[in-house]
Each structure stands twice: as C-alpha cells, then as structure tokens.
C-alpha cells in the first residue's frame, strides 16, 4: 500500500510497509515530431492512478485524493527545454474537476506559486514535473519541485542541494501533497552545455511514474536514469553531482522511502526499453 495517503482515504488502515509507484509507458505518448498526445496522456494518468489505488475508475481514485470543497494547487514546472507539459496539467485538472473540485478552485503554477491566490490557500497539492539531470542537484526531482515555495531558493543549494527534503516542512506545503507525477516522456539523462541541456542526451521513453510518496517516485526515476546512462555510455557513469538529496529526503527528513526494497514498483505498458 502506498504511504502518504491522506486520512480521508479509509482504505489506509493496515500498517504501511512499502511505497507503491506505478510506472506507465505508452509508445504513442510522444509523436515522431516530439508532440505530446493529450488523449494518450490522459489514458496513462488514468491507468496509473487506477493501479495505484486498485480501482477501476480514475475519477473514484481522484475522489480519494480530493473533496469537492478542496482548493487544489497543481505545482508544475515550466523549464522551457523540458516542461511538465500542458497535456499532463490538463489531464490532472480534468480528473480533479471530475472529482467535484470547481475549476475556479484549481490553480496550476510553477514560479508564481508564492502570492498565487490558489496556492496561498490550497488545501491539497498535486506535484508534477519531468525528471532531468541538473547542474547543481544532480537531478531535477519531485522533491526539488517545491523549491519555488521558498522566496529564496538558493537557501537550499548547499552541498548539491542536500537540504531539499526540508522544503516539505514549509507551512505552505506541509501535509498537503496527495499525488506525485514524474514526467518521463523525453527525459534528459546527461547535462552538458551552458544551460545544462542538450537534446542529444534526451530519449523517448514515453512514461509517467506516479505515487503518493515523492521520495519513492524520485528513486525510481533515478534508477531509470542510471540504467539509461549505463546503456548509453557503456559503463557506470555516475550523475554529477550526486543526487543525494533523494536519499537524504528519506534518511534525514523522513519524507518517504528511497530504498528499492521498500518500494513496490508496478509497471504498465510496453516492457521494451523499460530499463528497470
């Protein structure tokens, strides 16, 4: 059973032992020209949440996450070379509205979360972003995605961003995250160049990794990246700097599980090229 589910989920009654992460892939998510297929993305998100909650209806899954009177902030990521994508944002929004949350109570933002009227009073957060290598933290991760909730992000840059897990203690964030969606459509697995982005080092994976535990989802993403780098470079080429903020989020900040032995990974879709 996934950890981190809210108290409104009566299904969470047994002792939590493992964090469930669902990795769903679809070869039609990304077209040959790079365009993202919104219908396919919706289908993938639905499949993922149904597997996450053992339900047959995605709206029922979202009704576990939110109540109609919730105010919901979708924390996205707008980094131009590799954004969350409007397709993922809209797929989440559609299911939130299907669960009864009025559209005017849903906000989607990245850098503008502080001072945003929805995020200022949000009762629920949905966290969604792509994983990519990052020049200072090793990888841009779900854990790191909340850095814009602090007015001074460089506060968390020390020691390759080791303290990122502490972001989740901020009052504006604490205890509100119901779902984490790690976008793996065309991940960046090696960073070079002045902006740490080179399209040469992206590949079409066509995936989403979804879970309630951000540390577990990030750990799955990190394993995927390490596997891709081994495949591409023909050797173990460690990510630089080490993305140790993910393990520290577990061991120092107790945010979730980073140990693969404590993660239940469910894979849906094509096994070809899955790498993990």
């Amino acid at each position, binding site marked *: 059973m996934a950890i981190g589910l809210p108290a409104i989920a009566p299904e969470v009654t047994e002792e939590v032992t493992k964090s469930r992460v669902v990795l769903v892939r679809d070869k039609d998510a990304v077209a040959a020209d790079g365009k993202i297929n919104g219908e396919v993305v919706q289908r993938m998100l639905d499949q993922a949440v149904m597997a996450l909650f053992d339900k047959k209806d995605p709206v029922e899954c979202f009704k576990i996450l939110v109540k109609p009177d919730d105010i919901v902030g979708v924390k996205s990521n707008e*980094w131009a070379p590799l954004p969350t994508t409007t397709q993922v944002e809209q797929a989440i929004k559609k299911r939130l509205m299907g669960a009864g949350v009025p559209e005017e109570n849903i906000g989607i933002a990245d850098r503008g979360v502080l001072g945003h009227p929805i995020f200022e009073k949000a009762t629920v957060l949905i966290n969604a972003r792509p994983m990519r290598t*990052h*020049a*200072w*933290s090793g990888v*841009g991760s779900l854990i790191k995605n909340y850095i814009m909730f602090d007015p001074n*992000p*460089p506060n968390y*840059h*020390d*020691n*390759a*961003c*080791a303290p990122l897990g502490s972001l989740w203690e901020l009052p504006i964030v604490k205890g509100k995250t119901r779902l984490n969606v790690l976008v793996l459509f065309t991940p960046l697995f090696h*960073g*070079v*160049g*002045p*902006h*740490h982005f*080179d*399209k*040469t080092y992206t590949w079409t994976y066509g995936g989403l990794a979804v879970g309630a535990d951000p540390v577990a989802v990030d750990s799955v993403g990190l394993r995927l990246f390490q596997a891709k780098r081994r495949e591409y470079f023909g050797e173990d080429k460690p990510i*630089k*700097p*080490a993305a140790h903020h993910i393990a520290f989020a577990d061991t120092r900040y107790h945010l979730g599980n980073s140990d693969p032995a404590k993660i239940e990974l469910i894979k849906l879709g094509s096994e070809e090229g899955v790498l993990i």
Partner: protein
Amino acid sequence: MKILMGTCDHVLYHLNTRSLVRAAGVLAAVTAFMLSFMLSCAGEEGNKMTTLAARAVPGEVLGWKASDTTETYDRESIFDYIDGAGEVYRSYDFREVTVWRFTRPAGPDITVEIFDMGTPDDAYGVFSYARESEESGIGGGFEQRGGVICFWQNRYYVCVAADETTEDSRAAVMALARTIAERLPSLGAVPHLVRLMPREGMVEHTERFFHIHPSLNYHYFLAEQNVLNLSENTDAVLAAYQPGTTYLLCIEYPSAPEAREAHGGFIDNYLPEAAETGATKVAADKWVSALTLDRYVIVVLDAVSHERATALVNSMKKSLVEAKMVTEDQL
C-alpha cells in the same frame, strides 16, 4: 571618508559661527562630489562591460539578423534565465550575462550569450567546468557540441547555440563565434595554477579550475563537509592522471597559515592515519596523499600505489619551485 571627516572635525572646532556655516557647506559639497564620483565609476564599469560585449556581436551573419533588444541577467536574476544551473556561474566571479537572439525567416533561431566572468581566470574556470573536449582556434579554446559552440576569451565566456542543427545553422554558429572572438578584448592567460600542473600522465582536457567546495564535489566527491576550507578566496585545480584514474588537486590559499590550517584539518578529519607518513591506503589500489607547502596544499586521490602518489606530489612540488611560487628552503 573617515580621514576626511576627522580632518573636518579638527578644523570646525577652531572656527566661529559664520565660518562654521560656510565650512559645513563646503564639507557637504565635497562629500556629495565624492559620492557622485564613486557611483559614476561603478556605473561606468558596468556600462563598459555591456558596451564591450555589445560591440563584439554583429548585427547580421549569413542571413541571421540580431534582434533589436537584448536581455541581461546579473548574479541575482540569473536563475530567472538559467534555473539552478546559474549556481555554476555564481561559483565564480560572474557579473552578468547578456543574451542576443538571431533569427531568419527559414529558422532555426540562434542565441548568443556573453558571460562577463569578472576575470580571465574565472572565464577559463567556467569553460573548464564541464567541458569534455577542447579545440583551439577560437578564443582561448572552444568546445563544439552539435549546434553549440562555447569558448572563453579574456574575462568572457561565450556560447552560441542554434535551436536546431542544420548545415546552415552550423555555419552561422561558427561564423558568429569567430566574429565575436575577433572583436572581444584580446586573449587572457590560462590560470597560472593550471599551467603548473604536471603534464606527464595527465588525461587530456580534465583540468578543472574552481574556487569552492561544491565545485570540487562535482568533479570528485570528497566529503560533505568543506574539509579543505575552500572558499571564493582559494584557487584550485583538479586534473585526472593515468594509470588508473588518479586525481591531483592543488589549492592556493591567501596565506601560508591558512594553507596549514586547511591541511591540518584535512588530515585530522579525512586521513588521520596519514598524519605521520602523509599518505595512506584508503581502498584496494587507492592511495591518498596530502602535503602543504607555503600557500599551497597538494592532494593526490586514488593513486594506484604509494609510489605513484608520492611521484605526483613531487612533480607538483617541482612545478611550484621552478615557477618560483615557493622557494627551495620552503620544501
């Protein structure tokens, strides 16, 4: 200012009221003039950098035209442009980056970025940070990767990048890079510490010049704690050597006492076993050695043998002596 105010106090004590009023007026005028002079110098410095960079960028090249406006980001706003990777630039004496956009009807767009890194040393440093190859012929050295060319020259780090790589855009990127290099101030020297690194056995293009602890950990994770007391006031070079993958690290501190303190802390926290011998085996076929010499700390990491560690340390010592950075009697 302190000297000026002290002198004025002495003068004012001995004057009558009318003279006092006149003297106060003179004092205010002088103070205003000095403040205005200092501020205009700072502004002039900033304007000079931007103007120099602007003159280096042509208005048009091979059908691509520069936009009328540019964007400039400083140490605080760079995150708005580059996101977290801005810390790489801030780990050096980065001042500002100015961005030009070039377009042509058939595309693709080309971006020119000129980073003012404050000094030639730091322009080289940021160039060396993550480069995987290097060619000569543009600036102090350039790296080309697909549709991107980056080079360093004088205090500037320049990147020219096409959104998509086509035959035409590749030619335009190269032409832009060469033109800018011709127009920027002349070449600065590679940091002296980099030039002093022993060449024998060095793996090509692995020299990294930097200042602070996170940069060391990026290239070689040593420890979470800043065990070598690196700071913006230290110059450090790390390079890889064969056999195996051995690393030689040489750090220049502002003073000999600071070097000794860093060395002592490193030995105490990281290599207590090496307190007497200066070298210790940390794993199978991995030796670490460290010593201090005047303002320098030399560290060898992951040497394949005690002998190899010692040889590399001695090579570095010899370089420092031959360059007169330390004297024989300091050995």
